[in-house]
């Protein structure tokens, strides 16, 4: 199992995103407030200006009003502050407003012009405008309006400022966040790497702790304490097991010796057969204790005691020869396929022991008339041995368990044996730094593959013989 963090799932990414979103919202609210307040203030100023101007023009002599209006319009060719005089029938009399904005209430108050105001300098393009209209005592209508698109311009400036502000802070913020996230991720990966051997059963390993003493280190420290405790408990359990096995061996051996002497003395009497079956039973118990202690001995042993260059094929040939008569007695097809010389660093005796256990198991669980095939081939990284049988196979959910001490699958309950064979194999495999993978055979049997080189946990999937074919082909090509 690989703990690979999804990009958006890491704590720091999430925090950065939340923080960024809050920042954007807050910036928008702030800028909106500023824009709203500014606009309101400028509108007030404009309204006052318009009212002042209205008051000024309206108070001029009615006979000179048209001239005043025209004069006012003349000094404003852009129509920024338009002014217009209309008669009772809404016909323009003077000024630079062509049509009376009929929707504008003539109450002397400033309003937003519903349809805007055409700007004479911009091909009569309508711009937003505020204006007021009043009916003069002679029935004429005086209109003053002011283009307020400049105020909208301020709004645009503020919005642009907001955009810049956000992009200048958010983008580097997010980038920085990603960079910052890589640190903890690297450490998580380091922790993951450190846990791999622990998951494989090497409880002497601990998680790395940096000098920072941050949350990850605290967590690693807690896990390490826990591992220490687990290791202590396991070694106690193992110690108790070993002690029981060890202590019981001596009295059992004595018992066996007495039975043996009794058997010698009573000679050919009928009781002798009974005594002999007792001896066989005790031998069985003793062989289990021996196997149990053997597993412990192998587990406690440190690597590279008698390691040497060994031809795996040669060892497999010996194992094949050793088991040949057994397979023949059971009417099994028992073939050996050595593809190429397969050198590996190994302890030849232990390798034989491991392979003998694998092959012995395969023969034991394959029914009479079945088939057991041994094959050694060269992968790119080293030799591999496949032991394929046509027995009942090992169910996928039992594959880890079968390598544990005393575990016996449902299929094997009726067969003899200590249930320690695969424990011995896996202890030897661990000692060598090899890998043992249990898979499905080509038919319905089991396929046990011994890789004489280390294998990462995720590489352990895959089926038996089929997978090696291209690699072997590339070796021989």
């Amino acid at each position: 199992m690989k703990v690979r963090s999804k990009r958006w799932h890491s704590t720091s990414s999430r925090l950065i995103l939340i923080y960024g979103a809050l920042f954007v919202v807050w910036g928008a609210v702030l800028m909106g407030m500023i824009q709203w307040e500014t606009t309101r203030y400028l509108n007030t100023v404009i309204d006052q200006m318009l009212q002042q101007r209205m008051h000024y023009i309206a108070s001029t002599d009615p006979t000179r009003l048209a001239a005043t209006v025209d004069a006012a319009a003349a000094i404003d060719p852009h129509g920024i502050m338009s002014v217009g005089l209309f008669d009772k029938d809404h016909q323009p009399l003077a000024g630079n407003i062509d049509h009376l904005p009929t929707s504008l209430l003539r109450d002397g108050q400033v309003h937003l012009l519903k349809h805007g105001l055409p700007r004479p300098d911009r091909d009569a393009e309508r711009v937003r405008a505020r204006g007021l209209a009043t009916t003069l005592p002679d029935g004429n209508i005086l209109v003053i309006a002011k283009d307020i698109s400049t105020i909208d311009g301020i709004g645009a400036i503020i919005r642009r400022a907001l955009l810049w502000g956000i992009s200048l802070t958010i983008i580097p913020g997010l980038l920085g966040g990603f960079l910052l996230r890589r640190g903890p991720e690297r450490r998580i990966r380091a922790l993951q790497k450190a846990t791999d051997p622990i998951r494989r059963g090497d409880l002497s390993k601990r998680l790395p702790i940096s000098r920072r003493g941050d949350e990850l280190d605290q967590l690693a420290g807690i896990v390490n304490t826990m591992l220490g405790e687990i290791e202590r408990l396991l070694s106690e359990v193992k110690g108790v097991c070993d002690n029981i096995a060890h202590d019981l061996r001596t009295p059992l051996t004595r018992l066996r010796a007495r039975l043996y002497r009794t058997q010698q003395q009573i000679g050919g009497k009928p009781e002798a057969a009974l005594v002999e079956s007792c001896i066989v039973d005790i031998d069985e118990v003793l062989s289990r204790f021996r196997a149990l202690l053997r597993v412990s001995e192998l587990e406690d042993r440190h690597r590279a005691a008698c390691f040497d260059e060994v031809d795996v094929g040669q060892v497999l040939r010996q194992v094949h020869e050793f088991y040949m008569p057994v397979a023949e007695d059971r009417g099994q097809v028992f073939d050996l396929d050595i593809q190429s010389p397969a050198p590996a660093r190994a302890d030849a005796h232990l390798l034989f022991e491991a392979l003998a256990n694998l092959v012995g198991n395969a023969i034991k669980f394959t029914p009479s008339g079945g088939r057991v095939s041994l094959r050694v081939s060269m992968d790119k990284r080293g030799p591999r041995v496949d032991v394929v049988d046509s027995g009942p196979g090992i169910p996928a959910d039992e594959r880890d368990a079968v390598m544990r001490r005393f575990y016996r699958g449902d299929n094997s309950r009726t067969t003899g044996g200590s249930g320690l064979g695969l424990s011995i194999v896996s202890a030897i495999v661990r000692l060598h730094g090899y890998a043992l993978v249990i898979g499905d055979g080509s038919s319905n049997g089991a396929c046990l593959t011994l890789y004489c080189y280390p294998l990462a946990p995720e590489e352990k999937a895959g089926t038996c013989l089929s997978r090696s074919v291209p690699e072997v082909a590339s070796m021989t090509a």
Partner: protein
Amino acid sequence: MPRILVIEDDETTAREIVAELNARGMLAEWVANGQDGLTRALQRDYDLITLDRMLPGMDGIDVVAELRRSGSDTPVLMISALSDVDERVRGLRAGGDDYLTKPFAPDEMSARAEVLLRRRQPQSAQRLRVADLELDLVSHVAYRAGQPLTLLPTEYRLLEFMMRNSGQVLTRTMIFETVWGFHFDPGTNVIDVHIGRLRRKIDGAGQPALIHTVRGTGYMIVTAHETPLVVS
């Protein structure tokens, strides 16, 4: 009568060894520590020494090493509570001739002792013979009643080991260790199957059986009228 020196600090184990060897018609003497054992071994001529690996005063490895340095070639059967292969290798390198792990079955111990005693006698023969079974050590061919037998290499090695020690009980462990050269418990009945196969080739129909099963212990190759033990 062969004289055996038993160097063993644990009294119970020593009694067992002495009793078993005496029962087999050997004269066993017991010494409880390494220094005395070495002195005694150098003073008198013994046919075999059984030597505990861990002794007070002088370690078993030192005893056998000193013995060999002094020019003694008395066979030494090392008996040790240390079962690890490395310990076995150390014991044999120091000059031991065989290595037995405690706790052991007395018959296994005496069988090994007898094989070591036999090894002392000169074996320059080119042919081994048990009744009408003959083994030519030069041409690697076996004959039963003058007829050549076809043997596989393993079967030949097995037969040679048994014939070299004819008349002696050979345990399954001894057979596995000597013929195949490995030191672990092969568990199942593989050795029995190999013996059975050899037996079918050697003891043909109508011929007296030469390979005998020694109940509870192992096998022995011997002419029928010589069998001293409970055999079947």
